[in-house]
């Protein structure tokens, strides 16, 4: 069942898999919806491991980084791990500009990322 509008949520073992549905994460409305959907998802879990899949995302505003930062801290506080994958070069540029590629755990694709959780 598809319970969210902006994200597709699933689980591999104990790891929450979140796939962004949008091609463009640019305007504040989309961002706010993504935020509240992810918060709803983690609200139910304690110290979750999470993998964010950017496979669909072609354009992303730097405001999205704020959300990822919040998420990063929240998950770390519960001793969980946040990882990201399938980030295309244009999007990776947004991370690189702000040095956040060094803060976040970023992987080529989902299998590679999942392997690093063990």
């Amino acid at each position, binding site marked *: 069942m598809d319970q969210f509008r902006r994200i597709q949520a699933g689980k591999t073992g104990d790891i929450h898999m979140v796939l962004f549905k949008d091609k463009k994460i640019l305007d*504040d409305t989309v961002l706010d919806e993504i935020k509240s959907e992810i918060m709803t998802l983690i609200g139910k879990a304690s110290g979750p491991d999470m993998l964010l899949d950017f496979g669909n995302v072609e*354009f992303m505003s730097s405001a999205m980084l*704020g959300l990822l*930062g919040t998420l990063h801290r929240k998950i770390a506080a519960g001793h969980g791990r946040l990882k990201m994958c399938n980030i295309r070069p244009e999007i990776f540029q947004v991370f690189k*500009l702000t*040095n956040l590629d060094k803060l976040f755990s970023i992987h080529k694709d989902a299998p590679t990322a999942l392997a690093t959780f063990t």
Partner: protein
Amino acid sequence: MAGVDVVIAEDSRIQAKILQKRLTDAGHAVRWAENGSDALVLVRERRPDIVISDIEMPVMTGYEFCKAVKSDPGLKTIPFIMMSTLSDPIDIIRGLDAGADNYVTKPYDPDYLLGRMQSLLDSPVGDTTEAAMLEVALAGQKFRVHAGRQQVLNLLVSTFENAVAKNQELIATNQDLSVTRDRLQQSNAELTNLNEEISRRNAQMVRDLEAAAKVQRSLLPAADVTLASAEVAWRYVPCHSLAGDFLNFFPLDDQHAGLFVVDVSGHGVPSSLMAVTVGRFLTPKVSEQSLLVRQGADGGLVIASPAEVATQLNRLFQADEFSGLYFTMLYGVLHLPSGRLDYVSSGHPALLRAAAAGGVEFHGIDGFPIGFVPDVEYEQRSLQLSPGDRIYLYSDGVTEAMDKDREPLGDQALADFIAGSRGQPLEQSVAGLLETVEQWCQPNGPLDDVSILGLEWRQAE
């Protein structure tokens, strides 16, 4: 009313079904034919207690059917009800001439029809042997009608009753209409009030935004600020009325100048509120809040190192879960006599140097945006300027400016433009860079705030 035997003539199958159901429900036995001719057969087969007939029917109309019944001595006393739309007064004359006893107008009220049947059955139709030729004038025409007195009376009374019933319906409809109209007028008035309220609030909001924009402009360089041995030029274009970007330069003491570009994530009200808050800490005036300068133990002025400023800001502005706002900053302190620039970057685009001797190069430092990672120590670097060297600080609204195909302007285009403008005065170079960004973004214009701060250092005489 005890169940009676009814014959109906109606060419519309649906109308007939409805009528039949009504009559059957009321306990009557019903026989139906779809035209006058077939109905006449039914009437002759077995004499019914009452006949109800439509007028417009194929093969044999209601008038012809009625005439046939009324001219048959054995059948003429059967009460005959005509169902008519009564759209034409001539219908009455025709009904009279045909010998009909009663009119019920379509669309009919079932209870009214049943009531009509009842009264006809209660007062049986007399033998209208006294039928005579009557002359009637209607709508300027004379008609000769063959009718009995009782029949004329019945028919006219029923027509009158119909007219009264229709009139009452009309009055009721009129009253409904007038109630609806009153409601509509009320709703309209409410809508007008709401519209006025929206206009008022909108005007208030515009005033608030203008006030906020004014507060935000106070974060920008004062018009009369000059530096002893440096020339500064800047451009600042918010993409909405309120921005997340701001920039400034100012003397810190007689030997040092501070300069920065700050870019708060997002735009609009939340980002600009954050910008104003951050701005209060980046003031060159000694105060409780200033992170840039403070009073030393000996009473002298202490200038905080850029790294110290970034580290302090990061401690103060950890992004909360609610806003998720963070900011990037490039802050430099220039020692005016020597041309040494100490600077720090918190996830901000690299500064660009255009050397007097030619050539441009980027100078970036790795550092997370302010608010991302708690308790991080920021690293600072130094850059030694030569006389005539220029440095450019800018927000990512410059390099990330997107054209209509969402292709960013990029570092190379920036470096190329700055190198090309080396021969022009600094003011012209900065203005030209903004123009380049705006051209790139045609036809939509920049989607992000654009900030550019250029500085050319001259050795003091």
